[in-house]
């Protein structure tokens, strides 16, 4: 009504804009300037998103592509070698610092020099004025190692089982063969360390805990305690023997590894001995065909997606983080789906529509806007500290004072995010329920179906796409949230996955890794922000595509649902 009144007001004003009594053109009435500023605002918004996505996409996709390695001779005759990483115009401030005159067209390049163990840094800025010569030697190698990051330089000699050869191109295939063997050894070693030793450690721990449990239940003087102690010490002895055997095996492999090594040499001639087993990948950076490059690119992606992180998360893969994100999101959906659907069924189908329900609805809408960190604080205080410690006291007294459920874990994280996304699901489900035509319900009821039968067979199936959309949107939101997770169980490096081969296979109390937190951790807490950046970009690309995929799926379902109803009505 109000706005209808506005119309005469507008008429009163319009003589101000249209020049009275004139036939001439009135440009002000078209508001072209304002139209352009509005359009400009929209364009800025679109440019922002496009630039953002492009930045992520370009940086994320190019990271794993093997670039050429430059051998740069500087004007002071020092030589460096590195992958050109980034090039930028030297800004005014930096030129002020270096007090240069010819500022206008000064550029500098950031080289990834690697060899952190030799230089104590991975990257180096080189002003282009200082460069005397750049070459791309064919025999320079890019060597990825398990420690200290990549090595960029020449392969000088091979030490294979006490025999020493100078490296030449003919030896490359031999080195590749040895590398394959060494990698196989490394995998065995990893299995021995992680699986076998891990399970023995786990069993030893269990023995200690079960003894403590008996002590707590029956006391130290009881007969039960003594018999358990005897039987356990026998078991422990056996386990310790096993442990010794495995340790011996490991020792043998390590000794063998030490026999196969290469001596590397950087461009300035510093030598460095590296075990072949510590090399992950090596390639002559300037002597690759396109297919070889693609092969390296793909193998790096595979490593990224399937391996565990190395070097404080800035190298290796993100498999545990992917797994953690998936497991947590899945658990969250399992929790939030029934709760959200139940609550909205109550609000829509059962509750009397009155003031109270509309107030509740306002509250629920409101809760969707409550900051996620508040949910995180609640999750920590209520789930981990309140519920968790109670659970620990009742079910796991033998672990005390170490918490089991009394600290952050994947279950609490999923519950917290379930609460966080509950309003989203309730709102979406309610909308979906409201979209089911009343006539369908009435028809069903008129045919004699009970209320529950109507809901189960008519309302829910019809509302399902809408509910699914809500759930998927909730999943997308949950997968992207980091702040609350920082409080309820996400860690930078989880020793074990929440699901593994040790009984009871699913460990909802374990802390976990998360792609979003991985970004935060690597971007902010790595030894060198520059070294972590490529990894962060790739992780970001992965996370965004994951969330984008979920959103696209939700939108797809929504549009299909719309079509269905536009036909149905």
């Amino acid at each position: 009504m109000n706005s209808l009144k506005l119309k005469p007001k507008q008429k009163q004003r319009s003589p101000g804009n249209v020049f009275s009594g004139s036939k001439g053109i009135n440009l002000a009435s078209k508001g072209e300037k304002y139209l352009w500023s509005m359009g400009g605002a929209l364009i800025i918004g679109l440019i922002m998103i496009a630039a953002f996505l492009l930045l992520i996409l370009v940086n994320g996709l190019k990271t794993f592509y093997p670039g050429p390695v430059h051998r740069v001779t500087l004007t002071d005759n020092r030589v460096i070698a590195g992958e050109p990483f980034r090039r930028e115009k030297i800004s005014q401030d930096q030129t002020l610092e270096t007090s240069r005159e010819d500022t206008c067209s000064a550029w500098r390049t950031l080289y990834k020099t690697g060899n952190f163990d030799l230089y104590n840094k991975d990257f180096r800025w080189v002003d282009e004025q200082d460069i005397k010569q750049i070459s791309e030697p064919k025999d320079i190698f890019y060597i990825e190692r398990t420690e200290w990051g990549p090595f960029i330089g020449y392969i000088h000699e091979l030490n294979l089982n006490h025999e020493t050869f100078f490296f030449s191109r003919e030896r490359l295939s031999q080195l590749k063969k040895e590398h394959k063997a060494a990698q196989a050894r490394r995998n065995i070693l990893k299995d021995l360390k992680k699986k076998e030793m891990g399970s023995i450690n786990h069993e030893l721990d269990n023995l200690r805990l079960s003894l403590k449990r008996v002590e707590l239940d029956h006391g130290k003087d009881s007969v039960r305690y003594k018999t358990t102690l005897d039987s356990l010490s026998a078991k422990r002895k056996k386990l310790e023997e096993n442990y010794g055997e495995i340790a011996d095996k490991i020792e043998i492999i390590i000794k063998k590894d030490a026999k196969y090594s290469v001596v590397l040499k950087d461009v300035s001639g510093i030598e460095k001995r590296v075990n072949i087993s510590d090399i992950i990948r090596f390639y002559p950076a300037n002597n690759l065909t396109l297919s070889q490059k693609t092969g390296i690119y793909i193998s790096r992606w595979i490593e990224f997606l399937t391996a565990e992180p190395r070097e404080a998360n800035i190298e290796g893969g993100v498999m545990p983080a992917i797994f953690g994100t998936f497991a947590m999101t899945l658990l969250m959906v399992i929790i939030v789906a029934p709760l959200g659907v139940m609550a909205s069924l109550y609000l829509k189908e059962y509750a009397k529509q009155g003031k109270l329900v509309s107030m509740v609805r306002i509250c629920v809408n409101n809760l969707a806007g409550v900051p996620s960190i508040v949910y995180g604080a609640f999750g920590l205080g209520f789930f981990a500290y309140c519920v968790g410690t109670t659970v620990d006291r009742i079910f796991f007294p033998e672990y005390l004072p170490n918490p089991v459920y009394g600290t952050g874990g994947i279950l609490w994280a999923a519950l917290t995010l379930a609460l966080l996304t509950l309003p989203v699901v309730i709102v979406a489900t309610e909308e979906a329920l409201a979209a089911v035509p009343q006539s369908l319900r009435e028809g069903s009821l008129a045919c004699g179906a009970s209320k529950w039968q109507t809901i189960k067979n008519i309302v829910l199936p019809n509302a399902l796409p809408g509910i699914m959309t809500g759930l998927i949107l909730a999943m997308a939101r949950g997968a992207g949230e980091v702040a609350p997770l920082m409080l309820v169980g996400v860690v930078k490096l989880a020793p074990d996955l929440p699901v593994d081969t040790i009984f009871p296979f699913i460990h909802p109390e374990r802390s976990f890794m998360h792609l979003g937190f991985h970004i935060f951790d690597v971007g902010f807490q790595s030894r060198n922000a520059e070294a972590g950046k490529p990894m962060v970009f790739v992780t970001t690309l992965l996370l965004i595509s994951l969330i984008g995929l979920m959103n696209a799926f939700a939108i797809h379902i929504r549009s299909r649902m719309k079509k269905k109803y536009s036909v149905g009505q």
Partner: protein
Amino acid sequence: MKKNITSSPQSATSGRKKTTSRFVILADRLADRIITIGGILVIFVVLGIMVFLVKETYPLFVGGIETDTHNYSVPRPDSEILTMGLDDNKTMACILLKNGLVRIFHAKTGGPLPPPILSFKNKISSFGGSIDQNHIAFGFADGTVRTAQVKFESQVIALENLPQNLKKLDERDSTDGLSVFSQIPGNQYRKVTFKITTQDPVKVSPNDNAIIALDYRIGGETEKKTQVFAAVDKDQNIILSKIKSRVNLLTGKKRATVKTISLPKLPDNLQVHSVLLTEKADMVLVADKNGTVYRFNTHNFKSPFLAETTRLLSSDNQLTTIGFLAGEQSLVVGGTDSSLDIYFFIHNETGETSDGKNLVKARSYNAGRSSVTEFTPVQRGKSFAVARKNGDASVIHATSEKTLLDFSIGKNIKSAGIALTPRVDGFLTICDNGTVILKEFLAPHPEITFSTIFEKVWYEGYPEPTYTWQSSAGSDDYEPKLSLIPLIFGSVKAAFYSLLFAVPIAILGAIYTSEFLGVKTKNIVKPTMEMMASIPSVVLGFIAALILAPLVETWIAAVLVTFVVVPVFLVIGSLLWQLLPQHIALQLDGTPKIMLIALTVVAALFAAENFGRLFEQLFFSGNFKAWVNHDIGDGRGLLFLMAMPLSMTFTSLFMFGYLRNFLARLTSGFTQVQAAIFDIVKLLFIAVIAAFISFGIAWIADILGLDARNGILGAYVQRNTLIVGFAMGFAVIPIIYTIAEDALTAVPNHLRAASLGCGATPWQTAIWIVMPTAASGIFSAIMIGMGRAVGETMIVVMAAGNTPLLDWNIFNGLRALSATIAVELPEAVKEGTLYRVLFLAGLVLFAITFVINTIAELVRLKYRKQTAML
């Protein structure tokens, strides 16, 4: 599904029984119950978050709670009490008397325990000791001083090692005659033993005069201990002695060197009440009985000087008590006028004192009660206990002024000594008649009151009361400063600047999308903008902090000039567009037009990059960062820029106001192209005039001393509010845009049709018809965006620098509520003070967003009703 529907009429017609199957009824009822109960429960659980937050923060505001009182009598103290001690677990109490005797008894029952014998040859004439009373010193009538170490040794032993034949003291404690054994959980016992070890006497007074006042501190490491005491002898000689003892690592022998100096003489009529010394031995205070305090600066041990003489009491009053609080930064002073004040040592360079420090009264605890006779500080923290002349005793936290315990020993019964446990949970007093009262109480958060969180607090070492957030630091004596005001300010600042950036883009973009874009373009544009909403904020934070922040820092001038160049280019673009003949303009309307606008914006961005240097030269003396840091230049350049839009508006209003008729006559016969050219001329004219006006304004403002650098601009730091605002824009723009666009689209089409039919242009329709109708929806969109901006966490954690400041400087960082919770809560001790304060921060955040969202929701509902009527 179909089967089900069709089956029921079948069963009805075929003559089978018409009753509904019991299973169906049961299932229906069950579903009814489960959904109702479950639904209500879910809603309650969600609402329970607030209840839980309140529950977690409530204990902060509760005072001390008395849990237990023990009342008994011991033999009356037959001499003046020098000091009292009570161990951590309230098992044992000790009293040191002036006649050289020690008394020990069980703290809860008064059961006597055999005391150690101190065999002093001389009469004790004075006494002093460290704040924790573990290191004490006796001054004797013959001018010597003996130091001693007092300790309650506590040790946990297993049941097996418990000695036989223990005498029971109460249900928990028993004794073997020397130590007290208390049962603790896990079948273990705690053994508490009192130990006192005295050292050989040291001669202090040069003339062997009696020491009348003494204070003693011990510092340094265990291998290299430094013992210091300040003493006043009968002849008013003030002596400062340092004993350095070193243990030879090879021989294990101790070697002590004594250095003694005399401080400058004080007036002869001095009546020494007491002398105080700091642990670093850089200050000695001598207090006269009339309340005058002489402060010596002994920072340089060889050349001490009298730095300040000040009277801390009003005239006619006598000093009743004086002492340091833990940390030795505040001085507690009590007088016969029943005053109880705290003085800080404040740096001020006014030259009143010779070392630039001043004793300033910071707080008064004058409850109009009786004068304080006994005072004891707690070892750690800022709590202290007092006993008053009228028999009242209380435990108070100095900073928060929270009363932790308050009770009356008995009407006008004078306390002879008081003791406080280190954990501030037990208070023991002994009266002249031998009555002992032990109060056990709980005060888990003594430092927090409503006013320490939301009002200015004067902390030690600060020149004035401030809002400060500083939750942790290295040293033990450190007092956490937990004011939420800087954090709330940080959240508001971040939200304000990000909305300043986001609202115009989102709202203008939404209007354009809904009113001026074709359906096809809109179907691409809108989902694209919505996609922005699904970018995780951690990604935005990363990009903002690690990519954008360094980039903007390098190209700050170019970034700033963008805010000028883009609007200017758009205006130029629109002016050129007007030059197009009508039929071509109509043909190009829609997608080609938006493409042209996009081109203009891109061109503007490129131009901005190149104009950066020039812009910097023109307005900011060539270097923006130096300029904004007050290093170079004056404020005129920016003042000019800021005055420009204002004076442009003013000038054009003037032209429309006074010259309208003239202009109308002038342009009456113009064709479209002519009008367009005239428009350009007009705008140029306005711009030139406005430039002159702005220059004048800037010049005058500069003379008046106005400078934007003192307010919204200031020193540049890399991670600043500009970056936060930009990154948060990504998070907020899509929300505001989507809701506003929905609101605009929901305006019924017949309104538009009517307006256009009456001859209004699309622009007039949009601005005078659609906008007012959708105003409430747009408002609610902004509110919801604001709610999101206030609570956004990862962006502010990563890009805001996290410094708790209280200024509006856009180039400075901030610390938001949400970021503080995210960063500090994982490390906060469960149920500790910081933990609860952070929950309070969460509650505040919850409340802010709840209010904002509720307003938005109510406005939206009203709007919905309104549009439904149209």
